[in-house]
């Protein structure tokens, strides 16, 4: 049991790394995606919508296989970790772009109008007036997404990233099966998600106090 736990614990940093890096990539790349999605140009909107629909339409496991065995062995060399981070990062960008978009829709149109009427530049209005309000609305669904990403990061084990799930499979096979490694893996995933929930609640409460309408 302790030996099993020790093996699984070596997977924890990998799970955390894949999840947090993929989320960070998604949080950043989601911004240009949502701005394109809201652009006046039909072409940019179409491009953004296509990218979002494609990325959300492919199961992550299929997407990772394409990246790792397809692109990752021909054009550029990707190791399993890089392929997982990039693959899940792009999928996250699509989901987070949609979360940002619903945030924009929730902000009253009068906010942008007031900034415009004051003579503020468009980048200023976006960065100083709209973005903080969009973020306020986007944080709860983005956290929900982060927790589901934490679990879905297990897909990285299928291309060889030695995360918690990978260790659980490996240990189950070498030690002759049994449920123990998987039960322990489940507990580890839950323990990892608790600080995320806790953090999001405290951030949310702090913002709600200031921005409540």
């Amino acid at each position, binding site marked *: 049991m302790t030996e099993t736990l020790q093996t699984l614990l070596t997977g924890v940093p990998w799970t955390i790394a894949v999840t947090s890096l993929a989320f960070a990539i998604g949080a950043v790349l989601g911004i240009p995606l949502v701005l394109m999605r809201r652009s006046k140009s039909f072409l940019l909107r179409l491009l953004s919508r296509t990218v979002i629909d494609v990325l959300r339409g492919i199961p992550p496991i299929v997407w990772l296989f394409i990246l790792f065995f397809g692109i990752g062995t021909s054009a550029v060399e990707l190791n399993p970790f890089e392929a997982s981070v990039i693959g899940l990062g792009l999928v996250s960008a699509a989901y987070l772009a949609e979360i940002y978009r619903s945030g924009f829709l929730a902000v*009253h149109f009068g906010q942008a109008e*007031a900034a415009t*009427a004051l003579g503020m530049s468009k980048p200023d209005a976006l960065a*100083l007036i709209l973005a903080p309000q969009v973020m306020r609305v986007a944080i709860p669904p983005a956290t929900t997404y982060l927790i589901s990403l934490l679990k879905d990061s297990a897909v990285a084990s299928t291309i060889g990233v030695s995360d918690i799930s990978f260790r659980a499979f490996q240990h189950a096979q070498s030690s002759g099966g049994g449920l123990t490694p998987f039960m322990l893996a489940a507990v580890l995933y839950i323990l990892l998600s608790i600080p995320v929930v806790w953090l999001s609640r405290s951030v949310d409460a702090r913002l709600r106090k200031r921005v409540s309408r």
Partner: protein
Amino acid sequence: MDVQRTKRSRAKLEKPLTATAAVDGSKQPFADQEKPIVKLSNIVVEYGRHRAVNNVSLDIQRGNVVAIVGPSGAGKSTLLRSINLLERPVSGSIEVCGRRFDAGAPIAERTLMDLRRSTGMVFQSFNLFPHMTARRNISLPQQRVLGLSRADADARTDQLLARVKLSAKAGSFPSQLSGGQQQRVAIARALAIGPEVMLFDEPTSALDPELGLEVLAVMRELAAEGMTMIVVTHEITFAADVAHRILVMADGAVIEDGPPSSVLKNPTSPRSREFFRAILDRQ
């Protein structure tokens, strides 16, 4: 011309923000010879196939208070919002503080921002920024639009807050203020940019009568100080008291235009007689 304008706006900036003019309610006669500060020529605004403003031309002199009244859907707000180009007319031209804009012609972002700087707008729904305190709502635009330092912006902000009698609420967030207080902050915020024309879009319609009064009091002071004001409103008493001129709009057109005494007492068109009768019946 450009140099003059810059000088004037700077002079305006340095002018103390406290009320100086006597608040005796007397209306100055307006000089017709001067070039109008706002000039609309054959403005048409359309929403899809609906024509919201239909061929309106209008000259407004500096220092005048113009009230625009009329039934809802008459195109009052749309007309007001085309003055700072929040709505783009499909034809016609506007001229504000000497800057001319023709419908259909491309406008540089910079020029649009200058137009917005010379006009201040107050909205029915206040539109304060909910994530900032009252003080920050007023000081941030000064930093970003006028390029003032935080300290200078804060100093001017405190003067403006005193002027709308909200010094005590400087640190409050909009959600902690009453509607009337929010609208007064919104007026202070619009004034902070140093506009030459103030546009009010039904500033009291979202307020209950008492809170509306405190907003109207601030507007009266502003008018007494000689600010050019264009006010879309349902407050006929305010219009009669403060405005130099009342426009009645219906179906996208101006159907009545003149000093309150004649417009309110002897409206010429049957449509405006009907409108005023409806208002009187309600009171």
